[in-house]
């Protein structure tokens, strides 16, 4: 059996093993696995989320906190207001910008590093893995302090290096055009380790037999990556794509810490705007509406990604 055929066979093993239909017995088994999760989930996740959804149709504010039921219903007013809210649209544009650039960068880099670690080198793997993962677990406080130092226009490391090659470095975070790219760089830096960890785990599950078969067929390093690694990693890549997109659409910490949404709202993300509205100004109803609009966007994007990538199995 040739390598591609082997890969194809392996990759299609994913379908659920449809046992002979025994009706309620199957249901019982399925539910017995699902129940603990579903109960906890229902009470502590689903219920609050539902409550927040209901809030989005009210003008829930600080005055309603002691009597949530008494909040006045305003129908779809919050959503209508969103449509004409310039700040909201700006935040949406910023977020989309961030996602469109940040997700591919993060995944590509994560994949490259994971591949280099798993197949490119043999020694010091642990050390590299730990090293790359460090930003993921380092507190955002330290990261903020350091990156602010890096990007400082007068004595930051980046501008210092640029000066060495004769370039006058700009004020990265105070320049509306450069602030978001700086945030993207920081976020990618922070999350590459996470992508790497997941891809490494995924690559561990690829049977080496496939690589052997490929090399017997005469495949070089790039070809075995393209024809063995990538297809076998498809579920993992899909998973990471969806997770990363969902995460990045909820961009919050980096701009909050570094620029507070500025300069001139250039780095204001949707979640930041939601936080401002909900926790600083206490328009909890409005904030809930923002959250659910974001949710719809995320859902659509994830759905499309699923569709697009899965249909090729």
């Amino acid at each position: 059996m040739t390598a591609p055929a082997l890969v194809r066979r392996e990759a299609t093993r994913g379908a659920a093993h449809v046992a002979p239909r025994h009706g309620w017995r199957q249901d019982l088994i399925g539910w017995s696995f699902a129940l603990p999760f579903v109960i906890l989930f229902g009470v502590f996740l689903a219920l609050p989320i539902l409550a927040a959804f209901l809030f989005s149709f009210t003008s829930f504010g600080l005055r309603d906190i002691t009597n949530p039921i008494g909040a006045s219903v305003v129908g779809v007013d919050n959503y209508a207001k969103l449509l004409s809210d310039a700040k909201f649209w700006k935040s949406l544009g910023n977020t989309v910008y961030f996602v469109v650039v940040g997700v591919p960068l993060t995944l590509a880099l994560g994949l490259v590093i994971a591949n280099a670690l798993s197949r490119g080198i043999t020694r010091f793997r642990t050390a590299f893995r730990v090293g790359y993962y460090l930003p993921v677990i380092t507190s955002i406080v330290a990261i903020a302090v350091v990156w602010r130092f890096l990007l400082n226009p007068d004595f930051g490391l980046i501008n210092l290096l640029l000066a060495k090659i004769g370039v006058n470095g700009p004020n990265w975070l105070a320049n509306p055009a450069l602030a978001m790219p700086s945030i993207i760089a920081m976020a990618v830096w922070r999350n590459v380790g996470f992508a790497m960890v997941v891809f490494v785990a995924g690559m561990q599950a690829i049977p080496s037999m496939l690589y052997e078969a490929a090399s017997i067929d005469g495949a070089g390093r790039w070809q075995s990556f393209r024809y063995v690694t990538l297809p076998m990693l498809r579920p993992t890549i899909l998973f990471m794509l969806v997770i990363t997109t969902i995460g990045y659409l909820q961009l919050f910490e980096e701009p909050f810490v570094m620029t507070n949404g500025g300069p001139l709202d250039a780095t204001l993300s949707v979640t930041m705007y939601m936080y401002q509205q909900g926790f600083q100004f206490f328009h909890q109803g409005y904030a809930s509406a923002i959250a659910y609009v974001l949710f719809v966007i995320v859902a659509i994007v994830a759905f499309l990604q699923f569709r697009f990538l899965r249909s090729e199995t």
Partner: protein
Amino acid sequence: MTAIRARSATPPIPGGTAGQRASGGWWIYLLLILGVLLMVGPFLWMLLGSLKPQAEFLVTTPTFLPKAATTDNYQRLFSQLDFPRFFFNSTVVALVVTAGNVLFCPMLGYALAKLEWRGKRLIMGLVLATLMVPAGITLIPNFVLMRNLGLVNTYPGLILPFLVGPFGVFLTRQFMYGIPNELLEAARIDGANEWRTYWQVVMPITVPVLATLGILTFLGSWNSFLYPLVMAQEPNMYTLPVALATFATGQYQADHGMLMAGSVVLVLPVLVIFILFQRWITEGIATTGLK
């Protein structure tokens, strides 16, 4: 069945199975090293910063190495804060939350990936939907719920909303899709029911993903801040990040040294756990070769 048993007991191939053609040129090492420096540099800076006296933070040009290294920041950190208590709180909460996720999420993940049952699509949809709702929106509803259950300022109050999460389900489901059905069929033919199959066949294979899930969950819980803040009304229930923020930040000028020291302390446990767990990830499974 014996084949399955044997597989689980196969000693891991050093360096993992994917490292067959590991003929890395030196340039790969070089690039990787450069990358790692980029990643690790800030952490080093943080570590060195925790050894600097406050005055060294006030200079306009930040330095790398401390001029007058001191353990004063750590001393103050441990004396001004009821450190053992906060550490304990964070640990308990993070461990239980991790255990809950690692235990319950794969169960549902397996059920979604490999079983057929009524309501399956609905549950999957709901779980996936939850993943996409921005966090923070449920803070107040959750708090009011806890209030009504009388769980404010208690461990259960800190733990319950996070005991399971959609991420773990999603992660394990995706992974379990890739488990060859022949394995499960073989187990069933041998007479095992679904539960035995799950624990004796599926779980050992899933270890790398469980380890990943464990690390990520622990990390998330350990660094979690806002929820413990509102749920812990008294300092004796504060978790470490909350305590650090409350006591280490001055109003007009953060106590940089103490913040750095606190950040180091905050990072260390997760780092240790990661170093321990990531070995499991590397211990790959042997090739299927089920033929």
